[in-house]
């Protein structure tokens, strides 16, 4: 019986083989030397029907405890912001999700226009001039941004990275830069902000650039203006990694003198998905136009003078430039970037601000509530946005287990990141006062 994904009727296979002068399927593979040809079927489980596969998938799902049954205060790069329902209706359209990369612009205007709108939205949020069509994720976007900085041959010896950068991002950067013999110098935090006095001791004339995350991994806000001044004083590229939701309230980094802005776009309407696919954004000032990796969409006109969208400045890319390309990146996270555009357009001017300010208010409610229990101590005195860390008086692992018994994912145990006894808690607009009060009550019980 032929598989339902292979559209061949009775006798068609034989007819086709005969037309090309062959007698059986194996004849098609005659170029594969006999000793390399598989003689046995692949040792994988037999085919399942739709009914069986759905049942099987549900059974696997039952072995998880998902956020459908738990209240999440987990963050550290992936946040439980609400995803407007319209998004899935749009990205489920075959026209968007089953299309290829828009290399034939005359029949890909939908994807191209979506990317063009995405580029505009990212530029408006970040205050940058140019955004590419998206990267794999925030961490790899940060690594690629540093590669832009390092492309200046006179300054390719080292980069500075704030201790406030997400440890995972730092690890990804280490991987990307290890093979280029670039020295990575970590600048410590002081009272929740990157210590620029310490950075002065680390910078030299061969430093290509510096990366700071704002809000940082621990949730606190850095001094972006001083950071960008420090970079321009030392003639190096400033790279700022941001939480896009925070940009609903905070000044656009471009207006504060930042050269390159990166970040992870999960917050913008992309579900958790166990960490992927999300997307990374990378936006730059105009002078880096020839150095930005990845796809760019521009406006052009067709033979009749009509407005048309098209991939442009492709001479930077690997399929044209090969080993001299700015990066090897070939795909973008088109559908996730589309998701982000729909998200931003759905919330719009007032809704996006509302998401950010509710997250801010609720995070402060929980922060104050937790401190009041007496079970926590403050770690950072500096301001935070929607995520904060606290020092717990008892065992963090025990507390998190107690919370989980009440279906609450209480946060990230920072002991795993070298900060024993500390917990990182994220609060989005989705959390209710009731949920936070439950959290607080549970802490009181667990610490009593």
């Amino acid at each position, binding site marked *: 019986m032929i598989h339902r994904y292979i559209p061949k009727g009775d006798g068609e296979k034989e007819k*086709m083989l005969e037309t090309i002068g062959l007698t059986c399927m194996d004849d098609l593979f005659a170029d594969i030397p006999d000793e390399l040809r598989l003689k046995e079927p692949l040792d994988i489980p037999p085919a399942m029907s739709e009914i069986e596969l759905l049942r099987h998938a549900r059974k696997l799902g039952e072995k998880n405890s998902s956020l459908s049954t738990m209240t999440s205060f987990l963050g550290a790069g992936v946040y439980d912001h609400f995803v407007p329902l319209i998004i899935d209706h749009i990205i489920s359209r075959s026209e968007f999700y089953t299309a290829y990369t828009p290399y034939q612009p005359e029949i890909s205007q939908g994807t191209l226009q979506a990317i063009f709108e995405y580029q505009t939205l990212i530029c408006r949020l970040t205050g940058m001039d140019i955004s590419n069509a998206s990267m794999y994720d925030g961490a*790899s976007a940060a690594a690629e941004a540093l590669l832009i900085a390092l492309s200046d041959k006179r300054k390719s010896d080292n980069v500075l990275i704030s201790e406030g950068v997400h440890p995972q991002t730092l690890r990804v950067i280490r991987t990307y830069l*290890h093979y280029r013999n670039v020295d990575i110098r970590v600048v410590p935090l002081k009272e929740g902000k990157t210590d620029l006095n310490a950075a002065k001791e680390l910078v030299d004339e061969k430093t290509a650039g510096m990366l700071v995350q704002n809000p940082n991994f621990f949730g606190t806000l850095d001094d972006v203006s001083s950071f960008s001044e420090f970079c321009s004083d030392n003639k190096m590229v400033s790279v700022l990694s941001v939480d896009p939701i925070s940009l*609903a309230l905070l000044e656009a980094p471009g207006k504060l003198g930042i050269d390159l802005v990166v970040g992870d776009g999960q917050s913008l309407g992309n579900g958790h998905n166990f960490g992927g696919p999300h997307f990374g954004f990378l936006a730059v000032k105009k002078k880096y136009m020839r150095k930005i990796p990845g796809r760019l969409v521009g406006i052009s006109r067709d033979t009749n003078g009509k407005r048309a969208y098209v991939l442009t400045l492709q001479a930077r890319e690997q399929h044209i430039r090969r080993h001299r390309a700015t990066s090897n990146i070939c795909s973008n*996270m088109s559908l996730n970037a589309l998701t982000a555009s729909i998200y931003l357009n759905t919330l719009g001017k007032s809704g996006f601000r509302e998401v950010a300010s509710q997250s801010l208010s609720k995070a402060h409610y929980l922060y104050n509530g937790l401190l009041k229990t007496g079970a926590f101590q403050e770690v950072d005195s500096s301001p935070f946005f929607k995520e904060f860390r606290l020092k717990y008086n008892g065992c963090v692992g025990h507390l998190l287990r107690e919370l989980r018994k009440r279906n609450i994912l209480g946060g990230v145990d920072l002991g795993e990141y070298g900060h024993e006894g500390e917990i990182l808690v994220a609060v989005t607009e989705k959390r209710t006062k009731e949920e936070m009060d439950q959290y607080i009550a549970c802490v009181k019980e667990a610490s009593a």
Partner: protein
Amino acid sequence: MKYYSTLIFELSKKGKRAFSMPALDVAPVEADILGSPLRSDLPLPEVSENELMRHYVNMSQGNYHIDGGFYPLGSCTMKYNPKINEDISRMHQLTDIHPLQPEETIQGTLQLLYELQKDLCTVAGMDAMTLQPAAGAHGELAGLMMIKSYHEKNREYERVKIIIPDSAHGTNPATASMVGFELVEIKSDENGLVDLDDLKKHLDEKVAGLMLTNPSTLGLFETHVREIADLVHDAGGLLYYDGANMNAIMGKARPGDMGFDVMHFNIHKTFSTPHGGGGPGAGPVGVKKILEPFLPVPRIEKEGEKYLLNGDYPDSIGKLRSFYGNYGVLLRAYAYIRSMGPDGLRESSEHAVLNANYLMNLLKDEYDLPHDLTCMHEFVLAGLKNPGDATTLDVAKRLLDYGFHPPTVYFPLIVREALMIEPTESESLQTLESFATAMKSIAKEAIESPELLKTAPSTTPTGRIDEVFAARSVILTYDDLLAFEEKQRE
């Protein structure tokens, strides 16, 4: 399909909204508390929900897509995207999972990924697999990093050369550069296969490895692959398999058996996951035992009945991206493999190859076929036999008028006027024949009425687009467009 170019920013009217939110149920906190410079303006559009939906539906109708028609893009493998994959990738219990949840709350997810690793190893003939790379090119990056780390571990720091055939995808040389390798390009012989004599010339103590696509980008199987592998191994190098064309040989042959040490899969090609207009994809990387210590971390493992994430590998190249990979894409690939089973996977490769050979046979009278051999899943034509003034680009644009997505054009670089055609197993005999009829009719038009090719397309949402204008005017945002229009008015 339809023409629609109105931007969301042009639809925006002050005061409209497409969202609803509950009232704030705690005391409001003002943004001043952030102690940072605040934004005075948030320039996002203001539209209603129904306008938003219509905007995107109209926009989408400017797209050709695989659910709507044939997409014979060589090397891109535009096969059908099964619908159960989409449904499974939206099951809340499998997807509403935070990546930092405790292991005991994600056993189903870890089991699924563990099984996927195992199945991919089986299909590839490899010993271990990472699911972390986000795309094929990202997998290449992982693979070449592992090769470099392997030589560094053996203190063979002088191994700096990566050998790549001239028919390779552009990502291969770009990746070699990113990892700090020197690139050596070798020639193809008259059959488009690796020129063994040229290869031998470059095999010395500086060789780190060879990257090979097999079947090659010409759609031909490297019959001497074992010999190539032995030559490279004898010189102390490792072999990288670019899995772009793995969809041709599932259940028929395995890279691991051919002598490759490391390889990537393009999940969105071989395992039917949607291309999404350019992504997301996924690029799992398989390795032989000797490279296992270098795999990215964390690795997904099983201990007794428990699945876990293990980051404890001191020789690992580290992390290539946040968390564990494009899980949403991997879920779809898992569903595909379970739907197909061993026979289904083999049959999909067989029918992909059958379709390609059948279509090649239909086209070889009118189009120049430089390598008239049994092809694998794709074949490359060198333009029209009697082109007149018509180029491959003209043929491609004219195909749009016939309602087909054109093949890949001008790649591989070693074939002039290349048209690279990959029908995949998803197409029926009837579709192949109507595509061939269109191609033949274009060949006739090239002689009889060449202006039809030169002015094509004429039935698509836009006519041929001026790419030079785009590159010169550099309008990359709506704000650039406003500035450009302002300048024009002056």
